[in-house]
């Protein structure tokens, strides 16, 4: 592999990992909220969270572009208060990947939480534990496998994201170009060897992630 190829793989991995950091707290909270509580508007939130799974990624990207552009709702605020631009930077890559892989993570984590018998949580409460302690010492450890499997799947999904990324982050070599975008570009340019190398790397990472995640879900405590 060439230096450029290594750089591409490194950048894509870094972007996927950063998006995971964004997803984890939000996704865990959301998954717990969906698994354990009933509240008005729950069905709506459920639908919204899962929407990126079925919406064309390009549409999700378009929505993000609207939201984070200089004149967008969030984008204008970020620009004026933090002097921070999102669109067509690495930040846009992270946001696109996070939006696209959050549904997978929330679904997996929610199922994992739902499989934890509430009797353990109730017992912990009788032993004086408050809600945070119950979550971190009982619910999360007992849901560990499902949550980890979900994390791996989201990570793999993030690495393969194309449509939303290209909409909000574009294709700026060395700055926003990720593996899938580079592969598309290589094919466009007729650089077949380059495309195949990158495709191989993608396949190996994806295979490993799904393989481990399946293993985690099969093995029961």
């Amino acid at each position, binding site marked *: 592999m060439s230096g450029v190829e290594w750089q591409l793989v490194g950048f894509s991995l870094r972007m996927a990992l950063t998006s995971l950091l964004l997803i984890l707290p939000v996704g865990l909270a959301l998954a717990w909220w969906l698994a354990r509580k009933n509240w008005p508007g729950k069905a709506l939130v459920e639908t919204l969270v899962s929407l990126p799974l079925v919406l064309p990624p390009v549409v999700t990207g378009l929505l993000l572009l609207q939201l984070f552009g200089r004149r967008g709702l969030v984008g204008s605020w970020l620009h004026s208060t933090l002097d921070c631009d999102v669109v067509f930077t690495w930040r846009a890559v992270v946001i696109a990947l996070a939006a696209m892989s959050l549904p997978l993570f929330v679904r997996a984590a929610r199922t994992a939480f739902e499989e934890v*018998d509430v*009797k*353990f949580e*109730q*017992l*912990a*409460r*009788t*032993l*004086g*534990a*408050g809600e945070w*302690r119950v979550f971190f*010492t*009982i619910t999360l*450890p*007992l849901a560990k496998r499902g949550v980890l499997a979900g994390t791996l799947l989201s990570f793999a999904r993030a690495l393969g994201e194309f449509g939303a990324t290209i909409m909000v982050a574009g294709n700026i070599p060395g700055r926003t170009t990720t593996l899938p975008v580079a592969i598309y570009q290589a094919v466009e340019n007729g650089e077949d060897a380059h495309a195949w190398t990158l495709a191989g790397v993608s396949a190996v990472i994806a295979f490993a992630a799904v393989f481990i995640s399946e293993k985690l879900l099969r093995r029961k*405590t």
Partner: protein
Amino acid sequence: MNGKILTANFRKQFPGGPEIVADDLRIGGGITVLFGASGSGKTTILRCLAGLEIPDEGEIKFGGESWFQKSGKRQAASGHIFAPPQKRRIGFVPQDYALFPHLSVVDNIGYGLKELPATERTLRVAETLHWLGLEDLEMRLPRELSGGQQQRVALARAVVRRPKLLLLDEPLAALDTPTRLRLRGELRQLLRQLGIPTILVTHDRFEALALGDEVVVLHAGRNVQQGAAPDVFSQPANLAVAEITAVETILSGHILATLNGLATVAVGATRLIALAKDLPPAARAVYVCIRAEDVILIRNDVIQSSPRNHLPATVRELGREGPLVRVTLDCGFSLIALLTQSACEELALQKGEQLFALLKTPQVHLISFAG
């Protein structure tokens, strides 16, 4: 019994389920047994006391604290009180123990001691492990323990925090019969040593008799009788209680005469003498309840003996029931007796044999039809 520490008055109904009512439940120190068949609401009441279920309305008071208060179904939220389980300082042992599957025995037991400094915590856990003979199992996971060991770990986890109230839901039901019988005596001793006020739920009347100082009988979601354990079982307040406490022989009879506190009752052609003190004066038709443990069998009728009821009886059936033998007799009506194995052998009991059944007057319980 040193005063009442817990009073509860509440109702709770799950969607589509029966209404469960804790009707002026008063619980003192010592061990109180909530006794009833499955579906009688005893577990629901216990979970409401633990704060794991929220009653629809009513109140729960413990010592000087108010744990729950809510009147009317749709009233302003002001004035509602609900103390969550973590604020009640209780020890709760559910029927299946619910040991944390990912934590070792030590970590399970120490879970509730988080606010203590580490050294104190270690000491407390070690003390409890020693007390219950669990020292060798410290590092095991719950799934590596036998049923009896799990029961003890669950008890240890609940009592190590020195709770003000201990709530046990069918503590022995998950065990096989020999273990259950062995642990029944052990559990009573442990609870005695602890001296923590305890509420224990069971459907097993032997367990209720063995473990309880006080018994509250629950039927169809209500408490129907409360009293000292032996009193409740030997003097069921009404037919429903008699059926729950499983008095083996329940016959219908009518009172022929009452004299000096003694009633003469006719059951078919047989006459029985019983105490009349709990009967309404006008009672005629009665249920006659006789507990199998109270029936004495003798081979030859003795001329002089203290029991007033001497009934010629024929052995109809013999069946083993644990260490006891259940004898079905025909005395003009069907009467069940429970004897030890050795007593049966001594009497050389056989089917079709003729002998005599003796019953003392206080052991023939009369329950008037009106209840």
